[in-house]
C-alpha cells in the first residue's frame, strides 16, 4: 500500500511550494466532493493532498471598486448567503447551488468545480457568461486566466505543476444587467448536466442589448464560450427572432458525444432550448435591474 500525505498550509505561497516540490502526484483539496469520491474509487492515487481551506485568500469574498472577488474554495452554502454576489450574479450563485445536496453544498466550491475539469460542471458556463477571470498562483508567480480557457479537455487543465486557482474575479455588472443558468437533467436532483447553458446580458435604456455572453456545458469536450450567441443578442431587443438566433448559435456550437447521458441529436437540440430559456430569465432580471 502506498502512503498518502496530508498538508493544510495557511498561505498561498506554502501551498504552491508543497504542490510544486512534491515527488509523486500532488493534488489540491477544496471541498473534496469530487476528490474524495475519486480517491475512494481509485480514480486518482495522489501521494500528497494539500488542503486549501485554511488559506484566507481562497475562503474570502470581497468587493473592491468594480470587481467582485470570490475565493476559489468558498462553499456553495457560504456564497449563497452573500448578498453582494447573489444580487450581482444570481445565475452564478444558482449554478453553484445546483450542485449536489445540502450536505454537498456545505463543501462544494467554484474552484473545485472548475478544476475537476468536467465539461459538465454546472458553475462553469455561468462563470463564463459572467466573464469571470481566474487569479492563478504558481511557482512562477501569479497570472490571470479567463474561465473559458482553464479546461482544455475532459479532466485536463491549462494549469502547470504547483499552480492553483486562488480566486475568481467578476466585474460588478452595470445597471440593466442580468444572468441566469439552466441545466437539463432527466431527474430533478443528484444528476449530471446533460446540457448546461449560462447567459449574461446588459440592456441600454431603450432595452437594446449592449453586452451578452453565452456559456455552454456538457456539449463538447470542454465548456464553451459561444461568441455567436452574444452576436445573436447584441443590438437586438432580445425578441423572438434574436432568441431563435441565439438558440441556433448554441446548437451550432455543440460538438457533443453520444453517451449514457444523452445522444448527440438530443444535446444539440436541448442546448438551443436552454440557451433561449436562460436568456429569457436573464432578460427578465436585466429589466428589473433598471
Amino acid at each position: 500500500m502506498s502512503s498518502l500525505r496530508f498538508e493544510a498550509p495557511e498561505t498561498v505561497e506554502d501551498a504552491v511550494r508543497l504542490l510544486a516540490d512534491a515527488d509523486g502526484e500532488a493534488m489540491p483539496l477544496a471541498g473534496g466532493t469530487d476528490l474524495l469520491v475519486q480517491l475512494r474509487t481509485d480514480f486518482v492515487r495522489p501521494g500528497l493532498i494539500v488542503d486549501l481551506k485554511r488559506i484566507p485568500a481562497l475562503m474570502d469574498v470581497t468587493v473592491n471598486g468594480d470587481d467582485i472577488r470570490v475565493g476559489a474554495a468558498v462553499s456553495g452554502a457560504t456564497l449563497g448567503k452573500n448578498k453582494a454576489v447573489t444580487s450581482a450574479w444570481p445565475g452564478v450563485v444558482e449554478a453553484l447551488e445546483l450542485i449536489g445536496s445540502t450536505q454537498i453544498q456545505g463543501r462544494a466550491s467554484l474552484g473545485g468545480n472548475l478544476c475537476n475539469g468536467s465539461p459538465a460542471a454546472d458553475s462553469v458556463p455561468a462563470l463564463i457568461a459572467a466573464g469571470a477571470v481566474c487569479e492563478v498562483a504558481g511557482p512562477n508567480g501569479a497570472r490571470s486566466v479567463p474561465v473559458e480557457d482553464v479546461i482544455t479537455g475532459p479532466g485536463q487543465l491549462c494549469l502547470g505543476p504547483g499552480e492553483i486557482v486562488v480566486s475568481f474575479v467578476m466585474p460588478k455588472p452595470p445597471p440593466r444587467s442580468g444572468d441566469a443558468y439552466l441545466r437539463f437533467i432527466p431527474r430533478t436532483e443528484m444528476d449530471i448536466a446533460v446540457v448546461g447553458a449560462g447567459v449574461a446580458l446588459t440592456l441600454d435604456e431603450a432595452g437594446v442589448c449592449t453586452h451578452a455572453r453565452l456559456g455552454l456545458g456538457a456539449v463538447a469536450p470542454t465548456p464553451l464560450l459561444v461568441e455567436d450567441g452574444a452576436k445573436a443578442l447584441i443590438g437586438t431587443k432580445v425578441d423572438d427572432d434574436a432568441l431563435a438566433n441565439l438558440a441556433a448559435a448554441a446548437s451550432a456550437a455543440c460538438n457533443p458525444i453520444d453517451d449514457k447521458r444523452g445522444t448527440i441529436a438530443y444535446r444539440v437540440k436541448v442546448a438551443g432550448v436552454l440557451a433561449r430559456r436562460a436568456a429569457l430569465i436573464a432578460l427578465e432580471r436585466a429589466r428589473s435591474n433598471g
Partner: protein
Amino acid sequence: MATAKQEIGNGNGSLKYVGTRPWRPDGVDKVTGRAKFGADLSLPGMLVGRVLRSPHAHARIRCIDASKARALPGVKAVVTRDEMPEVPSQWVPAGEVQVNYRDMSQNVMAREKALYDGHAVAAVAATTAAIAKQALDLIEVDYEVLPHVIDVREAMQADAPVLHDDMFTQGVEPTPETPSNVFKKVHFQSGDLDKGFAEADIVVERTFTTKPVHQGYIEPHAVVASAGEDGQCEVWCCTQGQFTVRAYCANLLGIDIGNIRVTPSEIGGGFGGKTVVYLEPVALRLSQLAGRPVKIVMSREEVFRASGPTSGGAMTIKMGATKDGKITAAKAWLAYQAGAFPGSPIQPGCMCVFAPYDIENAEVEGYDVVVNRPKVAAYRAPGAPISEFAAEGVVDEIAKKLGIDPAEFRLMNAAKEGTRALYGPKFGPVGCIETLEAARNSEHYSIPLGPNQGRGIATGFWFNIGGESCATINVNEDGTATVIEGNPDIGGSRASIQLQAAEALGIPPEKVRPLVADTDSIGYTFLTGGSRVTFATGMAAIDAAGKVVEQLRERAAKIWDIPVEAVEWEDGYAKPSGSNAGDFEPMSMAEIAAQAGKTGGPIAATASINAQGAGPGFGTHVCDVEVDRETGRVTVLRYTAVQDAGKAVHPSYVEGQIQGGAAQGIGWALNEEYIYDKDGRLENPGFLDYRMPVASDLPMIDAVIVEVPNPNHPYGVRGVGETPIVPPMAAVANAIENATGIRMTDLPMSPPRLLEALDNGGANGGS
C-alpha cells in the same frame, strides 16, 4: 387454520387492533441507526473477502492461475471453480419461480464460461481489505472472448451466439435438434381466438419493449460466514429468506442442512432481489478453507453488474373489441430476458397479462430467453409489470378509438368473482371493479388538466402466494408476549404480525414483541416474497395465538376449579361464563402468566401451516403528467394509487407499500435502464447514471385502500406488496399519450426517446 376464525379475536367480531396505526416495532432502531444491517456484524479473527469478476460479457475461461495471489502474505484462502463442488442440474420450486442448483452454482462462481460482465470468477479472503484487493489483481484469468448477445430479440435469432450448448427449447414439438438461447416456451389458451377476433369491430395490435430494471435496494448484499472445524457452519446475511440461503448453501457446497445456521440481519430493502444467493456460498467456502470467519460486502457497482435485475421484455399484444366495448379476443406474444441462465418470470408474466379482464377467447405464448446479462432475480410481482404494461397500453388505445372513457371501458370488461383466469382458476371475491370504481370516482380523475398535461389510468393484477410458515408465541411472566417468526421484514411485516397476534390474544400490540429468528430458532418458513408474509405468517401467528388462548383458558379453569368450557377469553381476560358467569373476577393474561409455574409450566405454542387461498390483488392507478415538448421531459404532477388490501392490518404500511411500488414503477417508466457498450460492458453501474427517481422527482402518491376481504384469512388479509408496481408504467404511458397523442411503446420513456418521438410526430423508435 379453521380454529382461528371462530374461537379467537376479541369476542365481539369487530377488530380492535387490526386496522390501527401504532409505531412499527423496528422503527426507532432504524431512524436512530441502531438497526444492525448485513455489513454491521464483525467477528474476532474475521477475514475480508473480495470477488474477482469477469470484464467480458461472454468468454471461455481457459485457465485461472491464482498462485501469486495465494502466495501473497495475508491471503488465507482463494476460491475458483476448482474449489467449488460441481453441482448437477436440478430444478426446484422456489415460490413464484423455479431455480436450478447447477445454474445457481455456476452463477456464484463461473465454471467453463463467464456469461456476463460482472460474473464471479474467483474470490479471496485476506486479513485486510487492501491485501484482498491486491490479491485480486494477482489472479491471472486467461479468457477466450466470445461473441455476445444482450438484446432479447437478437438472442432468439438463429445466428445469435449461443450461451449454453446444451439448451434445447422446452415446450415445443418436436424438441429442436440444435441448441439455442430459448430455454422454454409457455402457452396458455382459452376459447376460440379466431371466433373472438371475427366478432370484433376493432382490432389493435402493437409491439412493446421494456428494459431490465434493478430492484435498487439501498443495502448492498453482505454476508459473514463461519465454518467450524466440526463442520458446523454459521451464516449472517441480509436476505429475504434465511431458510432459502441455508438450503442453497447446503446444496451448492454439499453440507447437511442441519449443519448450517443462517441468521438474517435487518434488511435494507430487497423487493425480490434478496431471494437468491451470490456471496453466501462463496464466503462459506472461503471460511471452510481459511478456518476463519469471512465477510464479503458488495459495492454498489457489484450490485449492478452482478445481482439480479428483472427481465426486459419484447411483447406483441393483439386485442379485439366490439363497438359497444366488449373485449372479444386477446393474444399476447412475450419474450423475456432471463439473463445468463434460464428462469425469467415468463410464466407469471403470461399468467397475469390479461388477468384484470374477463376475456373469453385468449391465447398467450411466452419465451424464456438467455442473454449475456446478469441472471434475473425476482422483483415485485415478477413478470407481471412487463406484460401488463403492454396489455394496458392496448386496452387504453381501444378505449380511445371507441370513444369510451378508459375507466369505464375497463369496468365493462373487469374480472370479478367467478371469472376464470386464463391460467386456470376461477377468481373468488376480488377487488378489480372496486379499485376501478374508486379511481373513477376519485376527485383526481375529474380535475381539469392544463396545456401539455395528460391523464392516464391503468389496472394491474398479481396473484399473491401463501405457503409454509411457522410462528411461536411465548407468554412472558408478566403477561407480555413474544412472537417468533421466520420472515425477514422487508415491508412492515413485523408490525402486521404483531397486530394480528395482538388481536388474536386480545392484548395491546405494544405488549407483543415480534422477532425474526434464525433457522435454528423457528421452524421452516418460506422466504419473504409473493406478498405472502402478512397473509401466511400472520395466519400462523393467529393460529399460535389461538393455541395460547386455549392454554390460558385451561390455566384459568384450573385456578378457578371450573371446566375449561366455562372459561371464555375476551379482550385479554379470562372470564367465567355460562353457569359460572360472575363467579370470579376476570383474570388478565399477566395474572395467569404469573402463576404459570404452578398451573403447568410456561405458556407457549407454535403453529406450522401451509397457507392456501392467498387472495389475488388488483390495483388501479391514475397518473397526471406534464410533457415539456422541447426537451421531452415528463413531470409527474399527481398520482393516485388504489389497491384492494383485503384488510389493511396496518394501513400506514399498506400505504407505504402502495407508494413504494408506484415510485419504483414511475422510475421504470421514465428513466431506469441498463446501458451496455458494444462489448457488453455495463456503463452505468451506479445510482448517478442508473436513474431511479429521487424524492423531489415525485409528487405525493395518494394511496387509496379498498377492502374486499379474502375469505381465506381470519381478518380478510390479501398480500399488498407487489401489485402496486404493476400499473405505473402503463399509467404513465397512457398519460403521455393523453398529453401528446403519441403512444410510447418502448421503456424507458426517457427525455431523448420522447423528444425523438415528439419530433417525428409518431410512435417512438423501435416499435
